[in-house]
């Protein structure tokens, strides 16, 4: 319906305006000119040539369009359809609220909000196009004077206004209708239901779309029926959105013109009603009430029938006469009897299929296959192929048919005979018996029934056979071995010790379940291969073998002998024991405690951890002994080369195996070789025959050397390496905290590897230097600068190696290293005193590792080494002294400053020094000129920091104020200059021949150009 006042009328307009056909989607646009003298001219009321309806001014029309859009997006009919809500109410009543909430939320997008702009875009483009070239040119060139083209431009303004109003409405509706706090993703159950509903709905929608509007309109008796078809499509869109998809049906199925045109008509016909919050609440209440009703009246069957798409009518009455005897059918064999017999079983089947827990797709398959089997069964009955037991019930036959489908079809959920019997309320054996008698030969099991046969002897004998073949030729492939086995069995050549029942199993497996045979025996070959190689490797490193890690490793590779973990473990254990008995010298001893003693999870975890350690250490020991042809062993002794250089005696030797580590000399580092990592590599690659040789080759290629943990740490502590001179400078603690901070700034700003870093990185580096100074101060004060237990490592050369060792590692409240960033020295010591422990070097710390001490007997066969290790442990423990109250009192705070130190101090002090050296007077003005800083800045600096600066600078009276350095100031400036020069010219061995080192200045711009960075791992700096 077009309002009369909106109709385009040439009589009333005074200048050009643009009008459009109000039929949404029609692209008829026209520029309407006023009549000459208000009455001369034709087509006073212009109409659309296609639709024969009066045109309407575009600015009036755009409002109607948005009205139609709002009506479509927020119509009351946008609430979920009844059939869907019914499904949700019955199947997932708890999810009803969240479903409804989600539905309302998804509605605008689901109902095609995205396509609005396409139409509007066309409309505005059309509007512009319809203007004459002259009009467009004049408008563009700003040649408009006064109110010329006022109406044309006003049209565009109105379009913009309507957009704004629409956006506003959209937001308001969203705020009112959506309950954002309770918006949750749909549950799996609801998602399944939505999928089913959408599938059904789409069938109908496709029919609707195929028919087209005109045909549908003819079919629909009223406009409201027609509207329902559109709502159906829009509901599908919302449903798709709720499933996380795009509403393709809306975006691609209907054009925007079409959708909003019809909604415009529905709106005009009064079929649209605005959706309100009350409507939603009412709807929810109603649905909840009906949910209670459904639960009471068990309407499940009705819904189920629809879901499953099974050919069952709702009003079908289930025949209660379950006791119809099958032998009656045989006896009478009349057509009606057979029909009745079939009907009875069919109804039982229907009942059972409903009761079984499975997905709807599975139920559908089950139902169809069962019906087919029922027909086959009936035809066999007709042919008198077998005699039926007199008391056989229809229910038993139905349950057996279902069982036969389940066992012979792999895509279905596995249900045991017992479970099925329970569902059907039958005796436990009845299904099995009936299956064996009437169905097994026709429908054998899809899966080989492992549980029916014993594989103990088969596994052992065939493993022995495989083991012998592998022993003769280690490089034989699994497939080749499998073919050998198959050929032997096909030619009736079985291991002698297998009896008839075993041979029957093997033959049955080979003939009926060839895939299972292939999988089982290829797995068995892999198992035996792994046992062979793993035993070899374990024997080499002199470690005992544990089966369970092997099981875990094999299962990760998908090898499981088609068994569950525990059975698989049992099989491997049996095979291992059998083979180990036959070849005692070849197989190492097996630890068999894990499952046989029924460990608790906690115990098993500990046990596994222990085993991990033992194998890791054994492997480490093996590698140390054999790498570089035994180069690490000197006269039977294993030593850290760096300790040897420094002449250390305690910190070297095999008894400190825990403290020995592998260090990469080359920059190439593909793998780290810690004890636990070595175990991981071993578990992963133990199935390889040359695993140990390979790993040794890899380590040699990466130039791995053996050093102690402490020296390893020192290699990587580049902060200490670069700033060692400053950190260990003897007079450092005679300076005030502020002076130390100033000097730290100087060294970081002048050392060529750190000078060009970002402010943030420099701050981090300064912090690291401060931390080391704090640590050095504490250890110097408490332990006189050396490790209290070994007396070898000291703070002058090895500050990084000192660890805080807790007396009882179980009671560990703080991580000592985290304290240095934020606490002063005295605070750190106080905190650590409460945590009970003391600082010792990392090597001695590793000696106190209880886990290591516990397993030394298992690592070393040599009792002498074990004894030595224990003695070392006792000695360290004896010398270890805790932080005491007296020690706390000894600690001051050499790094606790009162003033925030910035770079400007260095600058200003330097400026005064320079000026005085030149013989000039240092005033605000001269300093400002020298440093190229504003005068006011200099003045403020001295004014604000006077209190602190007075320690170093004399503020002479008079105007202007003259500044001169006092003795302390001169001392500080000379220290600044000293450390600046030192760090500007600092070079390392690597720099000597470096091509980027030009006269004390590094010109390297890439990390790979710097020899220090290339060789140093974990470099703390970046270019």
């Amino acid at each position, binding site marked *: 319906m077009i309002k009369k006042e909106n109709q385009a009328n040439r009589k009333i307009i005074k200048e050009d305006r643009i009008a459009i056909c109000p039929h949404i989607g029609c692209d008829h646009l026209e520029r309407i000119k006023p009549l000459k003298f208000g009455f001369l001219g034709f087509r006073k009321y212009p109409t659309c040539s296609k639709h024969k309806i009066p045109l309407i001014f575009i600015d009036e029309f755009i409002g109607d369009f948005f009205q139609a859009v709002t009506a479509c997006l927020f119509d009351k009919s946008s609430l979920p359809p009844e059939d869907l809500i019914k499904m949700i109410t019955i199947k997932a009543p708890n999810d009803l609220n969240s479903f409804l909430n*989600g539905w309302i*939320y*998804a509605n*605008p*997008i689901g109902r095609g*909000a*995205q396509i*609005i*702009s*396409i139409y*509007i*875009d066309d409309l*505005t*483009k059309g509007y*512009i196009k319809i203007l004459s070239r002259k009009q*467009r040119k004049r*408008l*563009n*060139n*700003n*040649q*408009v004077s006064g*109110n010329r*083209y*006022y109406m044309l*431009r*006003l049209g*565009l*303004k109105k*379009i*913009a*206004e309507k*957009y*704004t109003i*629409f*956006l*506003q409405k*959209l*937001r308001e509706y*969203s*705020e009112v209708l959506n309950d*954002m706090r309770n*918006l949750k*993703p*749909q549950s799996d159950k609801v*998602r399944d239901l939505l999928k089913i509903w959408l599938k059904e709905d789409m069938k109908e929608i496709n029919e609707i779309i195929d028919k087209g509007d005109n045909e549908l309109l003819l079919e629909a008796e009223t406009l409201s029926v027609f509207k329902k078809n559109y709502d159906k499509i829009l509901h599908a869109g919302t449903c798709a*959105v*709720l*499933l*996380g*998809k*795009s509403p393709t049906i809306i975006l691609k199925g209907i054009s925007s013109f079409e959708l909003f045109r019809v909604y415009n008509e529905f709106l005009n016909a009064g079929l649209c009603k605005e959706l309100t919050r009350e409507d939603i609440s009412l709807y929810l209440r109603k649905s909840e009430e009906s949910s209670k009703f459904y639960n009471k009246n068990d309407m499940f069957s009705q819904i189920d029938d629809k879901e499953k798409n099974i050919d069952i009518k709702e009003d079908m009455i289930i025949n209660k006469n379950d006791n119809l005897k099958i032998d009656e059918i045989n006896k009478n064999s009349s057509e009606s009897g057979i029909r009745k017999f079939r009907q009875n079983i069919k109804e039982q089947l229907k009942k059972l299929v409903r009761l079984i827990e499975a997905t709807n797709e599975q139920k559908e398959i089950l139902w169809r296959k069962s019906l087919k089997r029922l027909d086959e069964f009936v035809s066999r009955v007709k042919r008198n192929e077998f005699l039926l037991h007199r008391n056989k019930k229809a229910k038993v036959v139905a349950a057996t048919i279902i069982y036969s489908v389940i066992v012979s079809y792999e895509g279905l959920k596995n249900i045991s005979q017992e479970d099925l019997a329970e569902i059907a309320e039958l005796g436990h054996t009845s299904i099995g018996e009936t299956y064996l008698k009437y169905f097994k030969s026709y429908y054998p099991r899809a899966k080989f029934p492992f549980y029916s046969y014993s594989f103990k002897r088969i596994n052992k004998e065939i493993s022995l056979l495989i083991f012998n073949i592998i022993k003769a030729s280690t490089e034989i492939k699994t497939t080749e071995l499998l073919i050998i086995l198959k050929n032997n069995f096909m030619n009736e050549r079985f291991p002698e010790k297998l009896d008839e029942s075993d041979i029957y199993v093997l033959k049955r497996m080979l003939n009926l379940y060839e895939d299972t045979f292939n999988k089982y025996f290829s797995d068995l070959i892999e198992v035996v291969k792994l046992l062979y190689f793993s035993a070899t490797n374990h024997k080499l490193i002199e470690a005992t073998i544990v089966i369970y890690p092997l099981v875990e490793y094999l299962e990760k590779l998908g090898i499981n002998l088609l068994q569950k973990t525990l059975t698989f473990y049992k099989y491997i254990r049996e095979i291992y024991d059998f083979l180990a008995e036959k070849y005692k010298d070849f197989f190492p001893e097996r630890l068999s405690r894990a499952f046989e003693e029924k460990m608790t*999870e906690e115990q098993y*975890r500990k046990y596994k951890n222990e085993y991990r350690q033992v194998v890791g250490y054994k492997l480490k020991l093996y590698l140390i002994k054999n790498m570089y042809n035994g180069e690490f062993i000197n006269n039977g002794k294993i030593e850290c080369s760096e300790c040897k250089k420094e002449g250390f005696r305690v910190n070297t030797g095999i008894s400190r195996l825990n403290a020995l580590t592998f260090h990469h000399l080359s920059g190439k580092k593909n793998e780290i070789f810690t004890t636990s990592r070595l175990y991981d590599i071993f578990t992963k690659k133990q199935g390889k025959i040359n695993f140990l040789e390979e790993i040794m080759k890899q380590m040699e290629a990466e130039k791995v050397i053996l050093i102690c943990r402490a020296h390893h740490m020192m290699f990587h502590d580049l902060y200490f390496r670069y700033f060692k001179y400053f950190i260990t400078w003897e007079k450092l603690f005679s300076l005030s905290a502020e002076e130390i901070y100033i000097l730290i700034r100087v060294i970081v700003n002048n050392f060529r590897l750190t000078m060009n870093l970002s402010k943030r990185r420099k701050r981090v580096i300064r912090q690291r230097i401060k931390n080391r100074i704090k640590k050095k101060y504490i250890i110097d004060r408490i332990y006189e600068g050396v490790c209290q237990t070994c007396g070898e490592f000291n703070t002058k050369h090895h500050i990084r190696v000192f660890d805080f060792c807790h007396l009882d590692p179980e009671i560990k409240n703080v991580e000592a290293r985290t304290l240095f960033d934020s606490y002063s020295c005295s605070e750190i010591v106080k905190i650590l005193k409460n945590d009970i422990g003391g600082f010792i070097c990392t090597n001695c710390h590793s000696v106190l590792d209880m886990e290591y001490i516990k397993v030394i007997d298992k690592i070393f066969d040599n009792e002498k080494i074990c004894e030595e290790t224990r003695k070392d442990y006792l000695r360290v423990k004896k010398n270890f002294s805790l932080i005491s109250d007296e020690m706390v009192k000894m600690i001051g705070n050499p790094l606790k400053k009162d003033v925030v130190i910035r770079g400007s101090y260095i600058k200003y002090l330097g400026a005064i020094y320079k000026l005085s050296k030149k013989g000039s007077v240092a005033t605000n003005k001269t300093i400002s000129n020298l440093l190229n800083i504003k005068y006011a800045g200099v003045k403020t600096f001295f004014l604000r920091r006077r209190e602190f600066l007075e320690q170093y600078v004399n503020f002479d009276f008079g105007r202007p104020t003259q500044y001169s350095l006092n003795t302390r100031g001169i001392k500080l400036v000379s220290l600044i200059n000293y450390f600046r020069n030192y760090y500007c010219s600092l070079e390392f061995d690597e720099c000597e021949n470096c091509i980027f080192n030009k006269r004390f200045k590094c010109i390297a711009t890439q990390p790979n150009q710097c020899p220090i960075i290339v060789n140093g791992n974990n470099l703390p700096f970046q270019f």
Partner: protein
Amino acid sequence: MEINDEFFDDFSDIIENISFLTYEKDYEFLEWYSIEGLNKINELSRQLQTFFNYKAAVIHYRFSEPQKRDNSTKNEHIKNKARELSSLSSHYIEKLRRFGLENKNVKERILILLQRVKNQSNKFELNLLKEIKKIGKEIWIILHIMSKLEMNLYPKSLYFAVKMANILCSSESAFFWPFSSFYEELKSNYKQLEKEISEILQKNKSRQKKTKVERRKEKVVI
């Protein structure tokens, strides 16, 4: 400061927008339209489309199955666009900050600046405003393109895009005065959307954490 002709060349496209500040009648719009209306009116429908696309992406993300969400294939195109957006955005925000613009008062500040530029002819500020406008335009183009891609698979980028659109709406509402209310309204809608995504992201994050902890527990048990 001496003002020459060249100065006005630079000034022209900014002055166009601020000329409306002093009038309050319909022909302000008409005047404006004569300058850039033809292009800008189409921009509005594109803005609407982009907004709906982002809204659809948020809904998809909210309701899609978590497994699908996690196993999504990597889309290099989206990644590139997201990278472009991120670099342009940081550039844009940096420019805004030069004016001391905070998120809350972007519109007001730009309006004041426009007025000041008009009255005092400060070339530096003028250039900065021009740059902000230019970068804003480039960002919108990326946002339009991104909205048509599968943004629901990249929730963080989606969040960032919506957040950026929100900021841009503030400045656009100042620059394009005739559409001020439109952009204001669009901004409110984007704000609502931004809140939604941030909530979903928060929830998913805590869910992921939970699963991680559960997995860790499982590992320990094994």
